[in-house]
């Protein structure tokens, strides 16, 4: 039976949590305002009613305690899906994530897995207050022992979250807030590419635009705008920031010879640096132009009135693609 229903990312994530709680009675969902309220974005709406307060529960405002408790719960055989309410509020938990969540399997010589998912509404573009629009991915990607993923569409959000919860390794799950509400039609399915696999969301041969999360839609708009001018851009959604799908990056670089990488995070040591380095290492002889980076500026995330002057615009992406193609 085909489910042709329209899904928002919030709805898809909610369904993924629901289905994971249903399929595995060791899964717990907890965090700030996730139970009674259903989360400030309603991602956890209805889970308390469906699964009860033993498995879905509110906690004090205590990010380090939430993640630290998830570590202890893993020793007791539980799989925690915890929510950090916003990107910048995940920082109090960094010590627990870096010192313990990421390292515990290695520190216990493989005896204790950390099947923990840390959900973080991330990135900007929603006219949020300060500390509500940040791109923390590099901190997590640079921490060995973690996996880091971010979906760009509702159907993929469902699939990635199911994979993340099923994964025996800890996963940082970054949810692009600006993509929470747009709808996508189709069937929510676990099957399909998991963690570590990127996908081509638009085919093309003139250049490859690499993005993830919130920026994928903008890159598709840029590709559509480039098409009338004869530039047939391919768009890659990385999905998995760690591990990175380097085979896909290599193939696209070899096939198109020109690469643009786009993200909201500041330029310096952003994902673009890693993508550019990998492309250089793996496909240098096939490159017809230097890799271009279109990113946020190297400044703290600005107020709502200026955020569109900070975020990579469709125009900046189009311009970068034209430059690499005409190089």
């Amino acid at each position: 039976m085909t489910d042709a229903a329209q899904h928002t990312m919030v709805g898809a994530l909610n369904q993924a949590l629901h289905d994971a709680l249903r399929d595995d009675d060791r899964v717990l969902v907890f965090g700030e305002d996730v139970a009674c309220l259903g989360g400030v974005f309603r991602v956890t709406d209805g889970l308390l009613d469906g699964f009860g307060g033993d498995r879905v529960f509110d906690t004090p405002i205590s990010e380090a305690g939430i993640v630290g408790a998830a570590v202890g719960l893993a020793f007791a055989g539980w799989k925690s899906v915890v929510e950090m309410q916003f990107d910048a509020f995940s920082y109090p938990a960094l010590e627990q994530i870096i010192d313990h969540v990421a390292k515990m399997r290695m520190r216990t010589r493989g005896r204790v897995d950390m099947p923990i998912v840390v959900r973080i509404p991330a990135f900007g573009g929603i006219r949020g207050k300060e500390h509500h629009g940040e791109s923390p991915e590099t901190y997590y990607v640079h921490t060995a022992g973690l996996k880091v993923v971010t979906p760009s569409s509702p159907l993929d959000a469902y699939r990635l979250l199911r994979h993340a919860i099923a994964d025996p390794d800890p996963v940082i799950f970054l949810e692009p807030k600006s993509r929470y509400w747009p709808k996508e039609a189709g069937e929510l399915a676990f099957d399909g590419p998991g963690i570590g696999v990127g996908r081509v969301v638009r085919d093309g041969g003139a250049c490859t635009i690499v993005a993830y999360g919130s920026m994928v839609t903008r890159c598709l708009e840029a590709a559509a705008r480039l098409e009338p001018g004869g530039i047939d851009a391919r768009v890659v959604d990385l999905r998995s920031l760690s591990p990175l799908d380097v085979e896909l990056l290599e193939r696209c670089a070899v096939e198109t010879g020109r690469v643009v990488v786009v993200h909201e995070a500041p330029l310096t040591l952003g994902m673009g640096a890693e993508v550019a380095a990998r492309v250089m290492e793996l496909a240098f002889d096939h490159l017809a132009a230097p890799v271009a980076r279109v990113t946020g500026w190297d400044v703290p995330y600005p107020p709502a009135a200026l955020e569109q002057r900070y975020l990579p615009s469709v125009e900046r992406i189009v311009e970068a693609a034209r430059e690499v193609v005409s190089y």
Partner: protein
Amino acid sequence: MEAPEHWAGTEPERVLAHDGTPVGDTDVGLSDDQLRAALRWMILARRLDAECIALQRQGELTVYPGFEGQEAAQIGSALALGADDFVWPTFRELAAAIVRGVDPVQYLWYHRGTWHGGPYDPRATRFGPICIPVATQLCHAVGYAIGVAKDGSDAVALGYIGDGATSEGDFHEAMNLAAVFRAPAVVFVQNNGWAISVPTRRQTAGEIWKRAEGYGVPGVRVDGNDVLAVYRATADAVARARRGDGPTLIEALTYRIGAHSTADDAGRYRDPAEVEVARRFDPIVRFRAWMSASGRIDEDGVASFEDDAERFANDVRASLVAEGSPPAEWMFDWAYAEPPATLDRQRREALG
């Protein structure tokens, strides 16, 4: 100076006076055999601690944090736990570890630089990985306690920390979470007077045990050099947690006779006269005096424990120094349950 300054304030719970004279009910629930075992553990632990310092001086360990003076605090509390209870230690709980059945050689892999965290099996021994990030393990203890309670187990989690750790945010977060969830947890603070170079009075202006009231849980101040008092306070807290009545904060007043670690020079910040004062309150001397005066052990008995301790320390040394370097594969074997393809390439490059 009549006693270390951080022992001032509220009089701690005590069973034996400093000279071993009973000042409370000595029937804390330990049989004579168990009492003799407690004394034996204390003698073994002190001998092992001295051996570890020697091993470090000889280059067989990297840096070693000694625990001389804290034997009663660690052994009294560890003996109060049941088989299913789980310990979440800092990096200074070797005495508690051996009581809990952790292989000291595997434990010392940590200080030998052989492996991080829990070289021993933390699930099988119910002794969590050695934890250096200060107070973070308390959050694990609370999560574990919440988790086993969900499974209907009556197991209890006991987290050790020092006085310095009570200044950390994770101490607060763990205490608060434990209290709100009525987690079956015991937070056991060994207040040994020093956090590296900083005395307790520079960590906190109050008494640590009193913070319990703010969290809505019981707090206890106990003489941490009185093994009977430590045992009783811990056993009471464990029983309370097991009944479902939630966590307890225990402050055990003890003293760090040695430096913070073999890499530290306490002479730079601590008056040696203070250490000489603290030595007058030695936990082993006190317990042995009572055991002896009450007819539970004689000189031959003590001598046999000292012989055991000598053999124990020598066996640990012999096994430890025979250990070679770990294989380089270990760097890659356990980083991920499902390693990324990119890491497999690095593994091949590293291992040739």
